[in-house]
């Protein structure tokens, strides 16, 4: 895309102003937000993103109130404001809410809202998936938080260490945590898929990979991290819930289990999680700093290095949460070294900001105040982080208030202050009006001072020996004054947030609209009108630089006059451009879904499945799950892979793009690929469990070997591989037009799949492996069960393709469905091979 803009303009000049007005009207009509009660059927990224942000901000306030309750309790020694049980529920919920219901969701929410704007796209590729994720998040979040009001909240800590949570808490709290949050984690993964495909495939023409806004690099890294970090936790959740619900002894040492397996799975999630929370805030700073320095970011490639580098390194740190579990020194040393290495990319990150600020003429504002506060406090958190990465010091500091201080410096300094800066910066984009600079300055001082008074003394409290998670402490141990100071500081901090909240929600009917691009920023999201219109962007522009608003002449005028791509919606459909991953060459004109309530009902019944399962109402849970499946199938059937009325469409400037793409160039294929990457990561985590038990036991599998034998698993393997082959064959025959062969092979594949599943299950069944007796049969059943469930899903997909073909919704030319299903089967085949290799192969060789 290197055509000269001047030529474009002269060509476009032939369009009369009247034509432009009409095309803008058609476009607005296509993207119109539903009114009245139908408003809630909206799926457009600006609506869903805003709801999502507001919801996660509400959860933040809820978590903040919980923190205040804790600080009141700890203000004086021996306080009786809260009982031990209440305190333990509250600190568990504070951590869980802040991590799962605020920190991760707000980044996803905000990205759903602004990512398309930054990319000059109309919407993300799967708007309905975003809506589904949002409703799942809200339903799950209310369920988990609500438990606190019935004195039924989880009280095992946000880290939920068994056996406390598996055998020593009989109430429903731990189940609420496990099932409620697993539900939310699935929503998080859905958003991650959306964001990855968004950044890679929905960029405007010309926005090569060296030109994308830095925010998008971070989002790409963070969403990628979610794909690999959340699945191990989901695997852990499954194991722990199986132990709680069915007495499968994964963490019970009496029956071969081991509590440390949970700690590994939890922290393989938990440490990257910290960076998943922190990096998006750096991303926000990376957008704001160049704006206020009025110069492009210095060291763009270095920032990319630090984003990608931190993303990778953060996966090599998880054991530093387990330094005191009695691991051998060599393991401790390895993770101590890796934990220190991660400080290098973080240092690079900070110096890129410093360099940019010195290279520009800084324009001061409240945003910049908060960025300063964020960096100044985050550096303290980072330095104490390096200190605890040095294992010997961690032996003392671990599980004390020192860590509480450290982590809040990282998470409030590194995450919340930049988010507040982001609020000031992006508020006009959402509301068309600015937040008050005057109130902002008061908020800044209140929050900065309150924060430091609250959390700095905690470092000392911890070193004086006060452990974390205690609901009270004795007097005269040196903790009294420091705790009182912390508690008083927290009130100041709360006052700051309250004032901030007032500024955000106060009525602003009299306040004039903000000018357009109020900060004179250079990136695409500031093309937005005040107030913004639902179409995302008037026309999808051609990009030639990192800061098009600064560097491309007449850019805003050309966009406003619709002089680029897709300035019209002639067919009244919602459309955006899909481009290639590296150079953003336009590849497809993608039609995205419009308003629907299906996503709401899908989320409602998915939620029902998890919520009913919490109470062990299995019938209701299964029913709800089946309805959810039905709704999702309806949604997919009516809303995806629709056969267009024509092959290609003229998107303007003489460019014609296909309306329908299948296979590796299609966004749906990418989504399936990414989903299955996460899925197989969860499966690998379960396999890790098997080998973990092998390392800790003298004889694992226990001798004499009980099961599942070799015959049945291998029979299952052979049958399932035949089914896999038949599925691939049917894809080929579908494309070649051999309709009968297609029907025959795919039906046969479904039958053989089910037979193969039965054979697979026959292994542990016929050898009478009882999963409650020992961890060996339990892990065999989990691996087999996981695979069996996935085959059943695969069969549903095969039947779906048969039905699509029969209904004429899939043909030899329009074959996205079978392409995506066969991609699913690639991963399924891999899962089957690994399962059989482990359960039948490993006992034979070990």
């Amino acid at each position: 895309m290197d055509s000269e803009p001047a030529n474009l303009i002269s060509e476009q000049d032939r369009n009369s102003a009247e034509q432009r007005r009409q095309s803008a009207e058609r476009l607005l009509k296509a993207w119109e937000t539903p009114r009245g009660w139908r408003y809630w059927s909206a799926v457009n990224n600006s609506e869903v993103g805003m709801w999502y942000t507001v919801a996660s901000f509400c959860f933040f306030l809820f978590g903040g109130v919980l923190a205040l309750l804790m600080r009141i309790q700890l203000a004086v020694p021996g306080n009786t404001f809260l009982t031990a049980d209440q305190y333990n529920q509250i600190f568990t919920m504070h951590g869980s809410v802040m991590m799962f219901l605020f920190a991760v969701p707000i980044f996803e929410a905000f990205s759903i809202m602004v990512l398309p704007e930054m990319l000059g796209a109309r919407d993300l590729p799967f708007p309905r998936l975003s809506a589904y994720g949002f409703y799942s998040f809200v339903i799950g979040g209310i369920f988990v938080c609500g438990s606190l009001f019935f004195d039924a909240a989880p009280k095992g800590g946000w880290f939920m260490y068994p056996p406390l949570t598996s055998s020593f808490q009989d109430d429903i709290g731990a189940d609420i945590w496990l099932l409620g949050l697993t539900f939310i984690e699935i929503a998080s993964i859905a958003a991650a898929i959306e964001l990855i495909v968004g950044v890679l495939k929905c960029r405007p023409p010309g926005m090569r990979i060296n030109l994308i806004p830095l925010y998008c690099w971070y989002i790409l890294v963070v969403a990628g991290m979610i794909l690999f970090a959340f699945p191990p936790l989901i695997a852990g959740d499954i194991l722990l819930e199986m132990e709680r619900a069915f007495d499968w002894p994964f963490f019970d040492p009496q029956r071969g289990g081991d509590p440390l397996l949970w700690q590994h799975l939890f922290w393989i999630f938990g440490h990257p999680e910290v960076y998943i929370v922190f990096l998006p805030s750096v991303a926000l700073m990376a957008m704001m700093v160049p704006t206020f320095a009025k110069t492009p970011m210095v060291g763009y490639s270095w920032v990319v290095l630090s984003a990608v580098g931190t993303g990778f390194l953060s996966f090599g740190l998880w054991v530093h949460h387990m330094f005191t579990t009695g691991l051998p020194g060599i393991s401790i040393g390895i993770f101590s070294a890796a934990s220190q290495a991660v400080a290098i990319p973080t240092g690079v990150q900070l110096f890129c900001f410093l360099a940019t600020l010195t290279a520009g003429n800084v324009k001061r504002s409240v945003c910049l105040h908060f960025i300063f506060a964020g960096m100044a406090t985050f550096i303290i958190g980072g330095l104490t982080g390096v200190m605890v990465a040095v294992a010997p010091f961690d032996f003392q500091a671990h599980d004390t208030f020192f860590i509480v201080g450290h982590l809040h410096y990282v998470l409030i300094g590194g995450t919340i202050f930049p988010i507040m800066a982001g609020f000031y910066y992006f508020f006009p984009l959402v509301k068309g009006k600015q937040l008050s600079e005057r109130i902002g300055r008061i908020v800044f001082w209140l929050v900065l001072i309150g924060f430091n008074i609250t959390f700095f003394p905690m470092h000392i409290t911890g070193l004086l020996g006060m452990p974390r998670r205690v609901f009270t402490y004795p007097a005269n141990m040196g903790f009294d004054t420091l705790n009182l100071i912390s508690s008083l500081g927290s009130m100041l901090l709360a006052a700051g947030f309250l004032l901030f909240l007032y500024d955000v929600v106060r009525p602003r009917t009299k306040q004039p609209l903000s000018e357009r691009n109020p900060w004179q920023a250079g990136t695409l999201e500031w093309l937005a009108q005040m107030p913004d219109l639902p179409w995302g962007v008037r026309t999808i522009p051609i990009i030639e630089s990192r800061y098009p608003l600064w560097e491309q002449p007449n850019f805003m005028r050309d966009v406003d006059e619709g002089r680029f791509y897709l300035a019209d919606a002639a067919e009244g459909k919602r459309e955006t451009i899909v481009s290639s991953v590296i150079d953003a060459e336009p590849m497809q004109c993608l039609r995205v879904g419009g308003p629907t309530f299906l996503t709401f009902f899908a989320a409602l019944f998915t939620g029902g499945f998890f919520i009913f399962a919490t109470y062990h109402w299995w019938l209701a849970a299964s029913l709800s799950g089946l309805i959810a499946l039905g709704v999702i199938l309806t949604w997919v059937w009516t809303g995806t892979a629709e056969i267009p009325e024509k092959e290609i469409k003229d998107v303007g400037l003489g460019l014609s793009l296909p309306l329908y793409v299948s296979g590796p160039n299609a966004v749906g294929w990418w989504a399936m690929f990414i989903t299955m990457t996460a899925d197989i990561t969860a499966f690998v985590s379960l396999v890790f469990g098997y080998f973990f038990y092998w390392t800790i036991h003298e004889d694992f599998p226990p001798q004499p070997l009980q099961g599942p034998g070799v015959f049945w698993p291998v029979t299952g393997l052979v049958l399932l591989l035949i089914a896999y082959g038949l599925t691939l064959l049917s894809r080929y025959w579908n494309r070649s037009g051999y309709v009968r062969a297609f029907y025959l092979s795919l039906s046969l594949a479904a039958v053989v799949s089910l037979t193969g599943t039965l054979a697979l299950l026959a292994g542990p069944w016929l050898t009478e492996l009882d999963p409650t007796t020992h961890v060996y049969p339990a892990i065999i059943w989990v691996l087999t069960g996981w695979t069996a469930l996935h085959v059943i899903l695969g069969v549903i997909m095969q039947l779906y393709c048969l039905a699509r073909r029969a209904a004429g919704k899939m043909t030899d030319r329009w074959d996205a469905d079978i392409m995506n299903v066969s991609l699913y089967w690639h991963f399924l085949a891999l899962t089957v091979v690994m399962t059989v290799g482990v359960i039948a192969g490993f006992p034979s060789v070990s």
Partner: protein
Amino acid sequence: MKVIEMPAEGDTAKTKLFCVGILISGVSGSQSALNPAGAEAEQIATLFWWMAGGATVIWGIMIALLIYSLHLNPVAHPRQKSALFIIGGGAIAPTIILTILLIYGLNILPALLARPPAGTLQVEVQGYQWWWRVRYLNQWEEPIELANEIRLPRGEPVDFILSSSDVVHSFWIPSLGGKVDMIPGRTTHLTLHPTKTGRYRGVCAEYCGASHAYMNFTVEVVEKKEFDEWLAQQSTDRKTPQNEAVERGEALFLQTGCSACHTIRGTEADGTIGPELTHFGSRKSLGADMYPNSRDNIENWIAHVSALKPGVKMPEFRALKNDEYQLLSAYLKQLK
């Protein structure tokens, strides 16, 4: 709730320096990692002070740079120069500093984890919700069992053998050294070298349920000779009752069912569910270091234990008469 008083000593000067001299004064120090009384804690405290000093300097430099670039920066610097800034300050300097720190940390790590030589005093500690079973292993055929209190000889290494019978706990005596978790199904080790006599406090550092805050213990470091005498005394059975009140107290102890869970060597009481009580009267505290060991507190404990320690397994004995509480407390208190 005043449990232990310790004269302030040691690093108060440094502590004051650390928190600008106003925040702490009159720290008892008995639970402080900055007031080391053991070789391990000393090494780690030194490591901490070095790191804290270095961190302060680095933070100061960063803040100075930030303030310069935000507020004082007169003219825009050339971008090329700014890029050098990233290479020098962001990449090279941290790499050098971290390398030094890594070597320092790795250098002291092996000694902290090293297993002590054979013949070292071995103390087995088992964590329970929410108390500690303590067993001294060496030299005697039967281990000597105590609860919630540990005495150690000054200047000698001690090898703690740690395990748990219910949930994950963590054994930590801040003044002597780092902590090690007690994990069900596993045995972990911790070696400490006490260097100063005195009374210290140990805590459970891993969240372990309702009364996690009330799971503490007393540590007393004494001279070797005193330690040997104490241990020899602790290994004996309880003294035979010398007067009628004590005899009645013991009878009451056995009748009311206390013996189902508690052991008093020399009597029929041989329960193992709860803490061992043979020399209970010699202990400084009650209820895993919740209260000073006084008769009033003992009576209160027996009558209201569930209210005092949430989730505790010991049942309340409400049905006793007033004088029976007194008999029991007098009996327990004289078990020296």
